[in-house]
């Protein structure tokens, strides 16, 4: 997307080569300024020297999703040609400065085939000339002990014992380790990663799936036409993405089972803890005496016995915990005759998601487990640096702990922006290039904000996480895009920009209170004064006169991305996400900006500016920044007529006639009365 990445890349590659030559001769260590571990989407988005254990990029996608359909949308037709806007509806493509380097070149499907993604990544690597070293399997990462002048750095050891010394390590290894839960009989459970994907294998089988996420439902959906009964079991109820606005929750594309459940077609969802259950296989002896004999026989040629779900504590009476000795009293149905999961299963499948591979990190280099997300992810700072591991950054889906279950940081369409943010942090920290900023005159701020609000994809995808920062500087401002909001207290040191006494604005897109039925009445607001109750994604502006502190950040109102500001402005949600209405969007925004900037931001025709410039020591800002620079907006006869009819301009009878029109309050003509006369009319 932005060329600095590429420029930096070119420089880095050169650097890498040079170090390579220097050091290769006298030992087996390779020195790099930047190492990216993993050539998945996040690693490629970073574009430095990339170490990849597999033979191609994005190898995760060679296996997953198992049923080979991506659920990230690849919407080719949006009715718009704005590239930035279209990225709002392209969840697979990576950012680059090539306008056509998009997934749609590889697949035309809305939900593309999973194979197309590694294909796309290969194309991306090739066309951008990224340097990826394949076949380098890093097994050990430790912090460098010697404090070199350039920082401590990390040492990576690969399968051949080769060391790579990296000043900055960018870990984009993704989430590979299947999340497992230990319970009695968990060895009887198959994993999502290894189950057969041919539905015929499940013919007339009863299947219990542990988990209620997308992989669980994806698995269920693929066998729906073959399996006899599919039950999904996990602690929490299913969360629907279209209700929670979180794309990691169950997507409608996978939810056919909800239909068969609710229409009582033999499938179902059950809630319960995972740690306390047990899976037992019924033994031969049991078959003989139990009334279920017939049923068991009917499951055909499968040699394995049936699997029962029971509770660990019901097995307490068993000494050796040998499943063959399971008796009826060890099963819940004995105690509870309508226990939901009382029927046996042919298969139990674990679909519990994945966790970060902490094992390759030596204690000195290991980021801590995240507080959220059940500790499956590494804990990182708001700028994605590992907590306690300086110069080690976590990129991509593994960095999702910052916005777990709230935004899109765990998904390509989200982390492609956070990776770019990390890149900007690195630019400042290691190359003294401050965060890119655009200088705008204040009279242009409103238009610019509307432009971002109407097209920007970063804040739209990473809602509540990345926001545009506007540094107010009096008659002009500086506009910084897509800064990580949680890092706002460290803004100056991360961006290289200082705040002025005029304060700052933050533009965020966010969902609303979400307290209503997603499809019920009253789900959307349309009156702009009720914008703060908007439920759908809508722009919100926060105004601070000084940077919030970390303390402010910690104590921010519940559910808010930022602390309570001096003033806040919600732009009313829009059905079409087009925020350009003069009455509902522009004018309220202008009034908010006027309040923050303490100035009148209205536009005036040149004729008005002429009058105001001669009758005021300092005319309004719009006249100063336009008209007085010989750049005023001259009336066109038709528009002039309109403005007159509206009573907005004084002059002869026109203004008098407005007095009689109660629809237009008197204060609107106030602009005309700006000169006070000291003359005594009596003389």
């Amino acid at each position: 997307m932005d060329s600095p990445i590429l420029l930096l890349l070119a420089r880095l590659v050169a650097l890498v080569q040079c170090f390579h030559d220097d050091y290769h001769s006298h030992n087996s260590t390779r020195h790099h300024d930047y190492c990216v571990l993993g050539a998945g989407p996040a690693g490629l988005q970073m574009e430095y020297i990339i170490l990849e254990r597999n033979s191609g990029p994005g190898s995760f996608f060679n296996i997953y999703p198992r049923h080979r359909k991506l659920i990230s949308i690849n919407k080719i037709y949006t009715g718009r040609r704005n590239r930035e806007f279209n990225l709002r509806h392209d969840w697979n493509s990576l950012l680059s400065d090539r306008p056509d380097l998009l997934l749609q070149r590889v697949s035309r499907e809305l939900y593309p085939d999973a194979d197309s993604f590694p294909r796309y990544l290969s194309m991306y690597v090739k066309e951008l000339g990224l340097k990826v070293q394949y076949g380098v399997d890093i097994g050990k990462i430790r912090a460098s002990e010697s404090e070199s002048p350039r920082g401590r750095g990390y040492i990576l050891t690969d399968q051949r014992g080769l060391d790579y010394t990296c000043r900055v390590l960018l870990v984009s290894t993704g989430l590979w380790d299947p999340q497992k839960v230990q319970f009695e009989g968990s060895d009887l459970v198959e994993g999502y990663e290894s189950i057969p994907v041919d539905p015929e294998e499940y013919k007339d089988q009863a299947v219990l799936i542990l988990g209620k996420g997308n992989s669980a439902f994806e698995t269920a959906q693929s066998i729906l036409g073959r399996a006899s009964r599919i039950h999904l079991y996990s602690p929490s109820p299913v969360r629907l993405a279209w209700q929670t606005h979180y794309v990691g929750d169950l997507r409608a594309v996978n939810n056919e089972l909800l239909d068969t459940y609710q229409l009582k077609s033999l499938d179902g969802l059950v809630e319960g803890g995972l740690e306390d259950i047990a899976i037992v296989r019924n033994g031969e002896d049991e078959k003989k005496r139990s009334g279920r004999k017939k049923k068991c026989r009917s499951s055909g040629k499968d040699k394995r016995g049936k699997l029962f779900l029971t509770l660990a504590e019901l097995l307490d009476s068993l000494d050796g915990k040998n499943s063959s000795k399971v008796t009826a009293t060890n099963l819940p149905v004995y105690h509870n005759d309508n226990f939901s999961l009382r029927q046996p299963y042919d298969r139990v499948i674990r679909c519990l998601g994945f966790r970060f591979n902490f094992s390759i990190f030596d204690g000195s280099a290991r980021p801590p487990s995240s507080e959220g997300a059940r500790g499956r992810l590494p804990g990182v700072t708001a700028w994605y640096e590992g907590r306690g591991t300086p110069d080690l950054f976590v990129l991509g889906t593994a960095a999702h702990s910052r916005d777990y279950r709230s935004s899109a940081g765990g998904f390509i369409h989200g982390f492609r922006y956070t990776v770019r943010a990390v890149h900007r942090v690195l630019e400042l920290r290691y190359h003294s290039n401050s965060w890119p900023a655009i200088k705008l005159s204040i009279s242009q701020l409103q238009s610019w904000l509307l432009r971002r609000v109407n097209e920007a994809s970063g804040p739209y995808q990473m809602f509540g996480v990345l926001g545009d920062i506007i540094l107010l500087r009096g008659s002009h401002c500086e506009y910084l895009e897509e800064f990580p909001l949680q890092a706002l207290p460290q803004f100056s040191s991360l961006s290289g920009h200082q705040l002025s006494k005029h304060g700052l604005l933050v533009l965020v897109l966010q969902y609303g209170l979400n307290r209503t039925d997603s499809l019920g009445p009253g789900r959307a607001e349309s009156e702009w004064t009720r914008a703060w109750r908007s439920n759908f994604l809508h722009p919100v502006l926060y105004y601070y006169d000084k940077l919030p502190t970390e303390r402010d950040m910690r104590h921010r109102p519940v559910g808010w991305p930022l602390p309570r500001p001096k003033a806040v402005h919600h732009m009313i949600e829009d059905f079409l996400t087009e925020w350009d209405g003069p009455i509902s969007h522009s004018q309220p925004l202008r009034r908010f900006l006027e309040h923050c900037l303490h100035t009148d931001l209205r536009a005036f025709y040149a004729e008005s500016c002429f009058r105001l410039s001669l009758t005021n020591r300092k005319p309004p800002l719009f006249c100063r920044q336009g008209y007085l620079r010989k750049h005023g907006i001259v009336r066109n006869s038709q528009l002039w007529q309109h403005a007159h009819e509206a009573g907005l301009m004084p002059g002869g009878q026109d203004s008098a006639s407005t007095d009689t029109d109660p629809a237009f309050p008197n204060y609107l003509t106030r602009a005309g009365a700006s000169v006070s006369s000291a003359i005594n009319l009596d003389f």
Partner: protein
Amino acid sequence: MAWFICVVILLLCSKSEQCTTGNASKLIEHTAAHFFEKMQSGKMYFIYFGKQVNPTIGLFIEQLEKSADVLEDYGISVAKVNCTNEHIAKYCTGEKLMKKVYLFRGGNVLKSFDTDTVFDVNAIVSHVLFTVLFDEVRYVHTIAELQSVERAAKGKADIVLGHVQVLGLPEHRALMETAFVYGVKYQFVLTTGGPVLTNMGVEDISSLTAGLWFLHCKGASQHSDSCPHTALRRALTTLHIYTFLQLMEAPLVSEASVEPSEVNMVHSHLQVPLLFLFSQPHTVALDRVTAQTLAWRLRGQVGLVLIHRESPDVKIPLEYNAAYRLPGEGSEVKYLILNNLEEVIDLFRDESTPEEEDDDDNWATLDVLDDEVAESVYRDRAQSLDMDAVTELTADTFHNAVAESDYTVVLFYVKWDAVSMAFMQSYIEVSESLEDADVSDVELAVLDCGEWTDVCSAQKIRSFPTVRLYRPQEPSQPYQGMLGTESLNRFIMLSRLVSPVLLSSPDEVTSFLEGDMYQRHAAIAPVTVLGLFSSTADAGVPVFKEAAKALRGETMVGLFADRQAEIWAVEYSVTLPAILVSRGPTGQTEAHSLNLSMPDQLVTHIQRALLDTFPELTVENLPLYLEVKKKLLLLFVGEEESGRKGNKRVLDDMRSLLNTGLLNPYLPCWIHLGRTPAGKAVLEAYLGFLPLLPALVVSQLATGGEVFHYPTGRPLMVQPILQWLQRVEDGEEPPAGVIVDEKWMPSMPFYDFLSVMDQEVPGYASQRSAKTKTNRIERAEGEKEKSSSGGGERQARTGAHDPQGSPTTKPPQTSHHHSEL
């Protein structure tokens, strides 16, 4: 020592300050003898004993004098005693500065005040009346105190409860003045805040500085808890309170059998709107109930009239069930259909309080666009722009388009920018006019940055609208002139000429200067600039060429580098290199020696040379002249009447004034009010009225901000004007007006979402307290789980299916139970 005897005329007047007549102060100065005599009269006196006067005491005495007029209306004489001359024991104390004022009744001191307490008229009047009415006005602080007053008043009198945060302010005075007049009729109660207000339904006690409630106790039964009350929803002034009390006396609902326009009620005189409900015989009982309910809700704001529809005098279209009439002479009755009570109440909230900008319910009026550009574009929204006249570029066509045409003008715009869209109309007009003029080498194009965002980013467009001229193989040139048809047209026409025009012979030079060479261009840009150099080898030539390039589109620039340039140098007595500025065939030609430096400095130099010495200010050129930052000597001339050449004579006179060289500190200029109507508003703003034309004004726009008006009637001739200017310089002329130097603050308040949140969902927008410090993510998760799990059902099922009593197995714990949701 003279005695002045005060004649007390008790004017019982609620609007006190307007009621006194005459200008002489009513403050009397007493001698000791008179003082003692008056003390016996039984009247009330408010007397200050003083000796020396410092500034503070001086101010106090001034206020005391003013209060004398007011207090006279209440039968209280105000006096002072000069203790230097008189000695009155007890009161004339030894200090030099005495700071006590006493209120006497029949020789006794009712109360003494410190001059700091009774610092101005309002404080004096309010405190004095408060003392006088001590028995009538009850002061309450707690709810219990108020309730006891209420109990006593029930069935007997209504209560007027006033609240002022601070005593001695105008609100307090208004309240006391009203109490003085109505004290017999109503029980007055005063509070200064606290729990009583909460009882009245005030949410934020600290922000309410003053308020007034009418407690309808007279009709209340002894058994009811408290009397129903109505709040005064306006500022506490005597007039408002008076109106309010009148309204409280008016019947809750009146009934009439005439047309609404015929109804005459006290409300009309009190500037209060009337609401009419139309009743039919079979629903009249219900309608009365409705009317009563409404009337209670709107009491004090709107008068309610029930009109009996069946009366032959009433001819109201059947579809309407209500109507209202705003106060004011001849205001019309507006008919409407109302479906519920809230609608009616909302209607009046908006209609009856349009002047209260801070009224929360009044945001609807904010939906009126108050930006003249936005409003005019919005009003034009039904008209679709004729985009056929311009080329709409896209990311795909942009690069080819600007490479192909000799001249491509591109307007970069966004749809939501009103200025862009206003200019778009002019832009299309220019395109059409170029087409009409058969200009074929210029392509006018537009590019929507809302759609082709990459192009705009790549072109580094930072403001909207931006206009650029593209020529193949040349860097693009920004258009920095006025965003109007005429300016843009001129820019395009002039841009098509090479700059500078290289002239090769004296004939060409003459032709160029007189505008013959480029007649078509001369018509739109009569001022031309010619650079004169003695030879092409002159080092200044490249610099001049560079500057001329920069001025392309702005002015026609010629270059004559030849020995023969000396002819003009001699003629205009300058040394080469020089520039000639020609103001067209009828105008003058001036010469300036060139100070050759950097091209951009030369550009500024030429631009300055282009300025007229006695310009006609127009909307378009004013910015050029304001840059000079001189005081304006501004002549306003009007439309020329047929046959009279007044303007020309005056302008010529002014020109001859220029030649005196005495006008250096000024920029002499003129505005033709016919051609520049906006000038009228300027003149009116300067003077407060429209004087006879021509009018001469000095406007110190850049310095001081004062405006001076050359006396009407005095001849506009060189000598008198110079004399007048001298007097202005010397500060002997009184300014006729002042140019304001105010910051342009927001024209309207913004909609404060934070306070709305605080009000509607308390705590939603508050920072968490230190104790509840929790990780946001965890918390959010917890909430979601809680809200969606419906735990109750789970529990219930568990209880219902207790194990059948196996002695060896303990029942599964709640957390182990599985339930189907």
